[in-house]
């Protein structure tokens, strides 16, 4: 019972925070894949139209470069979250 109350308290905080956000429906632009009207579709069209320039511009390498940057972003967010969580622990220290 005590553990259940603690679990409720711990998980109740994020649930309460989530409940504060108004409901939102993302536009079709953010739909997954490369369907028409989506961000993936626009990027696919651009890449198709510029494919004939690939002898000059290494377009086929762009996704790989973007993947590197995206991975770095994810790693940075993880590091920031870990630092925030760790900052809550004084590890025996005082104010």
């Amino acid at each position: 019972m005590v553990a259940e109350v603690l679990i409720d308290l711990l998980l109740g905080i994020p649930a309460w925070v989530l409940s504060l956000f108004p409901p939102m429906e993302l536009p079709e632009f953010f739909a997954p894949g490369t369907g028409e009207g989506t961000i993936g579709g626009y990027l696919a069209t651009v890449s198709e139209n510029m494919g004939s320039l690939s002898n000059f511009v290494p377009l086929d390498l762009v996704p790989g470069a973007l993947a590197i940057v995206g991975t770095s972003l994810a790693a940075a967010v993880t590091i920031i979250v870990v630092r925030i969580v760790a900052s809550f622990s004084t590890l025996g220290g005082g104010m």
Partner: protein
Amino acid sequence: MMRRTAHAVVVALLLPALLFGLPWVGTAVAATSTTWITAHQTGDNSLGLPGVDFDIGGPSCEFQARWMGIDTIGDVSGSIEVLGSCSYLYSVITRDATLHLTGPSDCERVVDINTTKTSDWWSIGFDSDIAGTLSPALTGCAIDAYSLVFHQAGPDLELTGTIGLGDGNPAPLPVTSGNCGAMTIGAVEVYYQHASWTAGSPATYKVKPMLHVRVTVPTASTWTFSGAWSAALPTATTPTTYSDSLVNPVAGDVLAGSGTRSVTTTGAATIDLYARGSGGAGGLTGSVVSPASVTSVGDPDLPPLLNGSYVKATSGNFGSSFLRISATSGATGAGSWTGNVFTSSGSGATLSCVIHPGATGGSDGVPQNITPGGAGTIGVPSADETPGTPPAAETPADAATEGDCDFSFTDPASWASGGICALVGLVQRLIAAVKGLPGQIVAGIAGLFVPSDGYLSDRADALNTEWQASSPGAVMDAGATTISTVAALDIPAGDCHGVAFPQIPELGLTETTYPLDSCTGPLHTFAAFVRPFLTLMLYLGAVLASVRIVGASFGLNLTIGAKGGEG
């Protein structure tokens, strides 16, 4: 202050994701099906402009299909599940895509896929509801004779591919007995019959909410039920027969959850399925009532029944609970009760059925049945037959024991024998109570600090559902999807001719020309220099950006060319 608040919000949002992992995957339901059958397609690459033929390579598609849930008895149709993926030219491939289900004679049907193609694997399943007349088409026709023809015909592209569903592939497993179509599934109701025994004497009980659905099956088979229920249940009413200080259940007492349950029947049967998420929410925690009073005593010639009490038979998300009527020692026969023992209302859950043909064993038993709502009868279970029977302290058999002593204050002759008998009985009960004390203390402490089975997972599932339904969850999901889409882009590699100008005789262009042709000549030299340089710049920029991003997460502002103190 603002920064600290922002940190708190970030932690509150991401901590559960780190604790319980993302993404959360829902439960999957297995079904009778064939193996996947694969077909490949290639198409013309013409873009359809008059006199123009851009040689940009032909798109290719791969499709897989399989039969799902075929019932050879005939009254329930199956469905077909299709997966597809095409290389690129999404805007072409989405046009006029149709799926032809061709079979003998009049069994041919055409189904409009009506979906947007993406470069990822996509899936579509359709059944008789979508196909309209697909169900009668399957009856009486050999399914091995069917084939799927995937056809796309736009003004600029035409693709055709055939998947022979029965061509050298194993036919679906036959269903030898039972089918979902003959199953009767009652309305999903909310009950407050689930109870758990708590330590103490006399025993006390907590009433928790449960979902209940009654299913009747016509034949012997092994049935697997997959249930998923939401927390969006309406406000329930108070159980009518309780006069105790029962806390009124409120909406949300039943938390969202899911689970499966297999039951083997030996013939036509009625199955009561019970499901609960967790009873801890909604203010029910700590609401303790005494054993509910059951006033009817059944056959008046039998010793009177004392108290009816709710007994938890099994634990877990699916538990079978039943009403146990405690009787005086030695009582036999059946008890009965009147009035609405349980209250019921609400909806919001779904139940699906999947047949496992030919399955044997693995029976989980048929839960004890209780007629919802009104009066009913039930056999009095013995202690040996009752799983989860509470300890002896719960069974009030003391009255009969004292009565056997034949002790009376007004009869001095009974003081010696009856008095000693009563005294011995009292001492025995005292010893029994003291002996049971340590165990009850330990049980009480464990009850305080050990959460119930599945409690944490239930709460995590509920939080998962809330996260996925929330705006931040949708935004993060869209961001991850966009990144994965960009990373998976299939950018076509052009040849050294570059952009082609078509033949336009009116303008003096009698043949296709390539102004950026880098196969030979000066542009070849230029391209040989520019492409490696841009490749180097691209990767160098990506690496520098990554270093800067990661460095920023440690509070470092890494730049190139900045003066000391700025970087």
